[in-house]
């Protein structure tokens, strides 16, 4: 018999520009909030949510996989 209460453990996976991975629990907010929190200027990166490109105002959370890709290179 199934238990009456089932807990859903949700973790958001954030792949950083250096390929480092951060797992964030109970994360709810926007792409812009996340970039602000980790100190990345949104003009220097593009961000995908579950493989699709999203703007800074897009909501993130739950089991999303967020990839932050640095775009500015070269001298």
């Amino acid at each position, binding site marked *: 018999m199934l238990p009456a209460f089932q807990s859903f453990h949700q973790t958001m996976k954030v792949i950083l520009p250096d390929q480092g991975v951060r797992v964030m629990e109970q994360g709810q907010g926007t792409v812009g909030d996340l970039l602000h929190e980790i100190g990345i200027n*949104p003009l220097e990166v593009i961000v995908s949510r579950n493989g699709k490109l999203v703007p800074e*105002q897009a909501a993130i959370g739950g089991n999303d996989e967020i990839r932050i890709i640095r775009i500015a290179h070269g001298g």
Partner: protein
Amino acid sequence: MEQRAAREESPACACCGEPAVVYQLVTRRHLCGTHLVLDVEERVRATIQETGQISPGDRIAVGLSGGKDSTALLVILSRLLPAWPGASLVAITVDEGIAGYRADTMRAAERLTEWLGVEHRIVSFRELIGDDLDALLLGRETQACTICGILRKKALADAARAAGATAIATGHNLDDEAQSVLMNAFRGDLPRLVRTTGTGTSTAFLPRIKPLMAIPEKEIASYLFVQDLFSVLPECPYTKYALRAEVRTLLSDYECRHPGTMQHLIESKRTIEKYCAGTPVMEPLHRCRECGDPCSGDLCQVCRLRHSLLE
């Protein structure tokens, strides 16, 4: 980083209501992938048209590093070119000889030109000056970007002339242009600030055109990403020595807090250019006594560099 927008599940495109992929800071519009591609290509077409960068019959040599800006430039020009009857493209890649960096971008350049069906020529520093950049820079790494810039410009110009080009197109975007204005102001270099080798200037140089100069860097990356054309490539190992890297950080921080800053810098440059029109800001053109290339002094920068490398 203080521009904190309201949370939206998935902002809608201002043109069609589909999920947006990008937010344009200055126009305050969200755009979906389809409308971003249309918008970018239309703005590039308008830039070319307004500044007379391409004419029917032109042969445009595109400097193709294989990085995102030159990739976007070649893709866009190959789509827009039918608007100029008889115009053609040739892509030129300069292999500077940078270990662990150039091989990936060279392969990307080869794949792209093959896909687009554009003629591709590769030239190297080894052919131009006898050695790879890595070897030339031993003990002078802090001058990397200056030395590389001088040689790359020469290699590209020579290859463009050999390919019968009438103009050289480079992938400089809005961010690059704004950074250059600020760097020249920091250096107090007025001649370089107003110098332009674009359409309508000296016949000693092949005109250099910058069709992406109105497009922010982030929109170029997004343009490629939504078409599966964006590749994560290695960073040049000499970037850490570049003044541009510092200026980029400073300027993108300002742009984020005060949208339009980059555009205002470029407009300031145009105003200064207008005031300087007809005044002798630049030294008169001479011919290099060793190679005959046009230059402002007795020796061109490449020949001066060749001498200094022999010392």
